[in-house]
């Protein structure tokens, strides 16, 4: 149980940190604006292939953070509980 928790926590913090850095690059017009990390994506005309890769990675990391943590904190325990309940009922 504790192992699953720390896996989820690792995904949540690690993925969240990487997403935060990328969102700080591509979705933060200024650190004094009221729209930080969530502003519309702004890539200049001089954007390289790495910039578009970064934007792609940012979205991927966001959903990895959300879904990964939910998987280990909610999904897997739910499946285990359900399996236990089914086995108990079968006996």
């Amino acid at each position: 149980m504790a192992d699953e928790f720390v896996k989820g926590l690792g995904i949540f913090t690690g993925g969240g940190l990487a997403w935060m850095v990328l969102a700080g690059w591509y979705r933060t017009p200024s650190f004094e604006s009221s729209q930080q990390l969530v502003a519309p994506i702004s890539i200049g005309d001089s954007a390289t292939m790495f910039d578009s890769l970064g934007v792609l990675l940012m979205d991927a990391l966001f959903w990895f953070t959300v879904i990964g943590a939910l998987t280990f904190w909610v999904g897997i325990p739910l499946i285990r509980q359900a399996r236990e309940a089914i086995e108990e009922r079968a006996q």
Partner: protein
Amino acid sequence: MTDETTSDTETDDARTDGSGIVAPDDETPTWHERKKRAQGLSRLTYEYFERARREDQDLRQESDYVERDVLAFPTWPHEVIRNLAIASFFVGMLLFLSATLPPHIGDPANPSSTPAIILPDWYLYWSFGLLKLGPLNPELSILGGQKLMADRTYGVLANLVVVGIVAIVPFLNKGSARRPVEQPFWAAVGVGGVIFAFTISVYSAKNLLPMNVDLAFDLAFLLPIVGGFITWAVLKTMREGYMYDLNRRYYRLRPPK
């Protein structure tokens, strides 16, 4: 584990670490106790403390010390390695963030223009919120519906009362508890206080709150009570698995000769 075991260290053949295959009679859990520890949070707590006890026992068995010399873990390597790991983590995080997200230096503040929002530093928000307790200032019918004192005087008085209560708490509770589980009530009081500090801080910026101000005012006083009650209930449940002696042993002072 118990004082019995500790006094056994005086004799030569007794084990100094509390190990032994058969538990003494007063340590053997009854069937009632076994049942209480069988599931849920109490089982988790029990397993945690049992594991901590076991690690402690192993450490004592490997060690050259006899128990009366061991008042705590030695600084090297236990404390130093842990502190180095924590310090390395935070230094690395500082370097990483300053390298990847360097904030620009903004314009200097303009001293001739007053900002629209005036707030103290964040750690004084709670005090600022206490200045806004006007709705609690009673209108006394004996004075013909007048208030005894102005709202701002009332706010200053509220600050004095809260600071006074915080200053009194150490004199009210002089217990030797080391962890919240040992005194659920006082832990609940502490958690309630922390939540109140937070809610009253939020209320201090009530003109910026995107919610009903009256509701925020009520929640500022209700949430601490709710949080304190939940804390109390959780800690009461955890007491079932908690071993009081385990904790006390580390902090015991060397007895006088």
